[in-house]
């Protein structure tokens, strides 16, 4: 068969049923084979969105999402999505067309060195030189993307390789001598962890996105419950514990809850799991280490001691480590400590309402209260992300956002991908008017492929977060943050045939949310928010 056919057959072998992409001359042979394949191709309206959609598909399905683009500009448009997935350790396989191999390096039409350009943002990449290598490379790409610390893998495919003939045999197994992700924890280290937990009086678990990556949400909850250890999460870890769980004390960090930050500051044992203790979460690395003992559990040894000291490092797959800990740890005497934290949790500040505007916290709280238990909530970037992270009440569902890169325009395409990764779960994308306008071309994709997504646009006619920075740190000298001039987004959605409405009154939130969630079709809810509505 041809190289192109080998690519598509390999995708089928990997169980891929949906791919996101955008064609061009250099990838036409692959598209020609996709035509005859049962794989469903979602034609996005810009390649970056194919990347985000595939990444969210990967986050929800637990298997690498797949995106496809052509050479040059098509591939370059993928870069932001690759970097976004890389920062959040999301399993993704990207396939790009490339100019003919005998012309590589000559700056021919639509040539871009995409493996070079993507090098800092990919876990690994392949430039295919021989069609016979395709089955092995595809097998390795899926393996690399989905094992160890997950991440994006890029396959660059010169167009002549796509038409080259090969004998197709899909390998059964993978052997890459430079890649042996450790999975099982070292028993000696594990014993030290168990002892440290037994000795702690004020332990706290700080869990990050890696716990989701390892599929260890249930194991983490069981471990925390058995040992009666309070849990806080990073933004990437939101949803690991239901918001209402008695052991859960919220998100830590600059925009986190005071209870979570208090817990970290006053603990005598900090158990980091699947988190790199990034700068947004840990405000004072270096200070904390002096006060508390730190256990750091991560699949990536390079994360341990990178941002924070660790007294007990444990390199392991979070699921295996948590299963072991759940079996071996005893319930700790944390009653006083939990009571102390409960007090800090308080009732939360009352909503401050301003007339003619919607209070975003109130909206997010009401919305998430009404969502199905397993709904997927996707937050964009900006003030709206902070409002979402603070006020969303997650039950058994998921909270997805671009945590590490903070990429505006993530939410809408991600919602598309997340929805296609499930059969019937509710998917809500909550975004600012800036972020929405970065990806609103995908409204057409939603319609074309009949993908039901609930959209909330928090419209403050400004780049709210940047405006707030200018207000607070630049004495209110506003520059380039005014977004007025946008159309009525509800009317815009309606032009696409998407149901929509506008909300400007806190008293009508419940009805608006009901409308948003009713029915089987997409809906866009435009909420008018004051440009002066603060982050917290």
């Amino acid at each position, binding site marked *: 068969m041809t190289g192109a056919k080998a690519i598509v057959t390999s995708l089928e072998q990997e169980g891929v049923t949906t791919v996101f992409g955008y064609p061009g001359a250099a990838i036409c042979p692959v598209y020609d084979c996709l035509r005859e394949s049962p794989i469903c191709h979602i034609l996005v309206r810009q390649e970056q969105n194919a990347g985000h959609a595939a990444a969210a598909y990967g986050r929800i399905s637990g298997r690498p999402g797949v995106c496809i683009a052509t050479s040059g500009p098509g591939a370059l448009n993928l870069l932001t999505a690759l970097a976004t997935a890389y920062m959040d350790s999301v399993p993704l396989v990207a396939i790009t067309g490339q100019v003919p191999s005998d012309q590589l390096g000559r700056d021919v039409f639509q040539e871009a060195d995409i*493996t*070079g350009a993507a*090098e*800092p943002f990919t*876990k*690994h990449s392949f*430039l295919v030189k021989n069609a016979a290598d395709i089955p092995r490379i595809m097998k390795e790409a899926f393996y*690399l993307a989905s094992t160890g610390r997950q991440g994006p893998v890029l396959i660059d495919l010169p167009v002549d390789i796509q038409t080259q003939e090969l004998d197709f045999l899909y390998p059964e197994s993978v052997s*890459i*001598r*430079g*890649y042996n992700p450790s999975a099982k924890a070292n028993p000696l280290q594990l014993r030290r962890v168990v002892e440290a937990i037994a000795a702690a009086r004020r332990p706290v678990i700080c869990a990050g996105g890696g716990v989701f990556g390892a599929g260890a949400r249930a194991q983490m909850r069981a471990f925390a419950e058995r040992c009666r250890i309070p849990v806080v999460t990073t933004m990437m870890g939101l949803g690991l514990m239901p918001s209402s769980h008695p052991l859960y004390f919220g998100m830590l960090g600059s925009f986190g809850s005071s209870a979570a930050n208090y817990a970290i500051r006053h603990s005598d044992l900090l158990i980091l799991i699947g988190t790199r203790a990034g700068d947004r979460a840990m405000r004072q690395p270096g200070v904390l280490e002096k006060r508390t003992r730190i256990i750091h559990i991560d699949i*990536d*040894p*390079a994360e341990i*001691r*990178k941002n924070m000291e660790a007294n007990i490092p444990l390199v392991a797959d979070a699921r295996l480590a948590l299963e072991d800990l759940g079996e071996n740890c005893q319930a700790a005497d944390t009653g006083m400590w939990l009571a102390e934290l409960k007090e800090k949790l308080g009732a939360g500040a009352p909503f401050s309402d301003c007339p003619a505007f919607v209070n975003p916290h109130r909206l997010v709280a009401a919305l998430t209260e009404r969502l199905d238990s397993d709904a997927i909530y996707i937050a964009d970037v900006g003030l709206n992300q902070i409002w979402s992270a603070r006020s969303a009440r997650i039950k058994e569902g998921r909270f997805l956002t671009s945590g590490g890169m903070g990429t505006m325009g993530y939410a809408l395409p991600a919602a598309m991908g997340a929805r296609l990764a499930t059969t019937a779960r509710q998917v809500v994308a909550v975004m600012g008017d800036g972020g929405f306008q970065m990806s609103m071309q995908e409204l057409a994709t939603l319609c074309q492929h009949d993908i039901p997504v609930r959209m909330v646009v928090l419209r403050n006619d400004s780049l709210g977060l940047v405006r707030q920075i200018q207000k607070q740190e630049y004495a209110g000298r506003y520059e380039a943050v005014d977004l007025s001039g946008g159309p009525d987004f509800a009317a815009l959605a309606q032009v696409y045939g998407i149901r929509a409405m506008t909300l400007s009154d806190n008293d009508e939130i419940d009805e608006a949310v009901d409308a948003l969630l009713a029915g089987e079709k997409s809906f866009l809810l435009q909420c008018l928010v004051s440009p002066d509505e603060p982050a917290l």
Partner: protein
Amino acid sequence: MKHTISVLVENHAGVLSRITGLFSRRGFNIDSLAVGVTEDKTVSRMTIVVEGDSYTVEQLEKQLNKVVDVIKVRTIPQQDLISRELMLIKCNATGRTRSEILDIAKIMNANIVDLTKNTMTLEICDLPDRLDLLEELLKSYNIQEVMRTGTIALQRGGAAINVK
């Protein structure tokens, strides 16, 4: 402090740029890097000399290990280090100075590899410090060109750093 790291990598195109890209991206300052194929033709060995504290070296090792094309990373302990560097050095040499340079070469165990009416080219293979010394000694003879290979190193004793 200087650390010498021995790295085994897949011997294909693009691997070197992956490694050097990682250095610049993560802000590691490399003193020298030398690459060559090993006893196994599918594997290259790099010797990297880096200046830094133990945090830097630990990070460097871990980041190198993450590169899929990297097969093995070992920092060679100072006391077990066998290291050599090769230098070619060309300087002015006329009738009178020629014999002076010859003397220096003899003492330093350097060879004369080229000679013209006005210049002399020496070759030395030794510890990097000794190369520095030779260069220093030849300074007054108007050095025209210096080329150094960067340090290569193996570990002393029977133990080997290889793919097995």
